[in-house]
């Protein structure tokens, strides 16, 4: 799958295929969706098995589960305030889903569902729908005042309002494209350097020696990708929190 006919094929790793045999094929259940199930199951397992003991002094697993809980809870209360606790499960689910999607994707043979714009845009669209719903539920028609800041001169309205609307609608785009682009770039780079390793390895005597170079680059890239995996999940969650803050407080 690496170097077929001397061409670097970095994009075939993103191709979808149905899985789970004929049943999966019948409902178009792809390997990407299977990895979503893995990620969700892993998160649920971590949070239930880890908290199984309900110990006063937590063990390792419980500490991990509690850290994840408190990390997101801290983010939500810090960004949104006390009212934000209602939306904590949503932010937690998003963070875990993106983080584990990015992280599981780094395992060999695994599929990175966050490298699909459809998936990231689906998540971002969910965020915008929830945020807009929260804003409408809390403020009703006042929500539309959000697009025209108070105190701005009225004659600027024809400029300000379209700009504000465009910036509001660009939120899901920036949210989804940031995550998608980061994951695609990382995995393409990993694949390109991995292909170099294979290609150089086939070049006679010096090849295997030379192939150490792209291999060591890939090792470094792997660590970098782990950082990116966490960072992008963090950015996704914190931007969701900031949008929720705007929805709850309207500036």
């Amino acid at each position, binding site marked *: 799958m690496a170097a077929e006919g001397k061409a670097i094929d970095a*994009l*075939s790793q*993103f*191709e*979808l*295929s*149905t899985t789970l045999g004929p049943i999966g094929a019948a*409902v*178009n*259940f*792809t390997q*990407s*969706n299977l990895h*979503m*199930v893995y990620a*969700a199951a892993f*998160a*649920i397992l971590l*949070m*239930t098995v880890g*908290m199984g003991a*309900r110990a*006063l002094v937590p063990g390792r697993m*419980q500490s991990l*589960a*509690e850290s994840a*809980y*408190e990390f997101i809870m801290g983010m939500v209360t810090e960004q949104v305030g006390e009212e934000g606790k209602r939306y*904590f*499960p*949503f932010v*937690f*689910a998003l963070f*875990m*889903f993106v983080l584990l999607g990015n992280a599981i994707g780094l395992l060999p043979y695994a599929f990175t*569902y966050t*490298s*699909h*714009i*459809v*998936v990231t845009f*689906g*998540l971002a669209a*969910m965020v915008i729908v929830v945020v807009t719903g929260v804003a409408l539920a809390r403020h009703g028609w006042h929500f539309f005042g959000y697009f025209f800041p108070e105190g701005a001169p009225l004659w600027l309205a024809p400029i300000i309002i379209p700009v504000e609307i465009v910036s509001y609608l660009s939120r899901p785009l920036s949210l989804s494209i940031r995550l*998608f682009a980061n994951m*695609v770039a990382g995995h393409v780079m990993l694949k390109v350097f991995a292909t170099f390793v294979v290609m150089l390895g086939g070049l006679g005597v010096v090849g295997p020696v030379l192939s150490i170079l792209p291999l060591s680059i890939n090792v470094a890239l792997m660590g970098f990708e782990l950082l990116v995996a966490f960072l992008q999940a963090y950015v996704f969650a914190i931007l969701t929190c900031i949008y929720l803050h705007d929805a709850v407080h309207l500036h």
Partner: protein
Amino acid sequence: MPQFQDPLLLSQAVWLLIIFGVFYFVLSFFVLPRVGSVLEDRAARITADLEAARASKQQADAAMAELSAATAKARAEAQAAVAAALAEATAKAQAESDVLNAKLAEQINAAEARIATARDAAMAAIGSVATETASALVSKLMGKADANAVQAAVSRTLASRGAA
């Protein structure tokens, strides 16, 4: 790029919504409340323990204050008792010595009186003794003695010496 042209994109997105929906539902109704309750229990426990510790400290402080007050009181009482005993002993000693002094003075006075009477008696006797001695001396020297003249001479001499 497969991300923009794969025929399975739409079904992938639909499955995403289903899986994420179930994930969110399970998390928010079953998983996260349990974690939250454990954390709340711990926070409550810590608060209660801190409260108990604070109460215990207050109790200890009160006991300490009570103890120091009791110590101070005991010390004051002991000092008062010592002072009272000292004063009593001094007074008793004073009284005893007064009684003794009085008794001694009385004995001294009595002795002095006895001495005075003895001296007076001696002084009274001295005249007759001197006269007898003088009469004996004179009669030895001169054969006989004029008793009246000797007595007069003795009286004169005694008077001139101022003895009485």
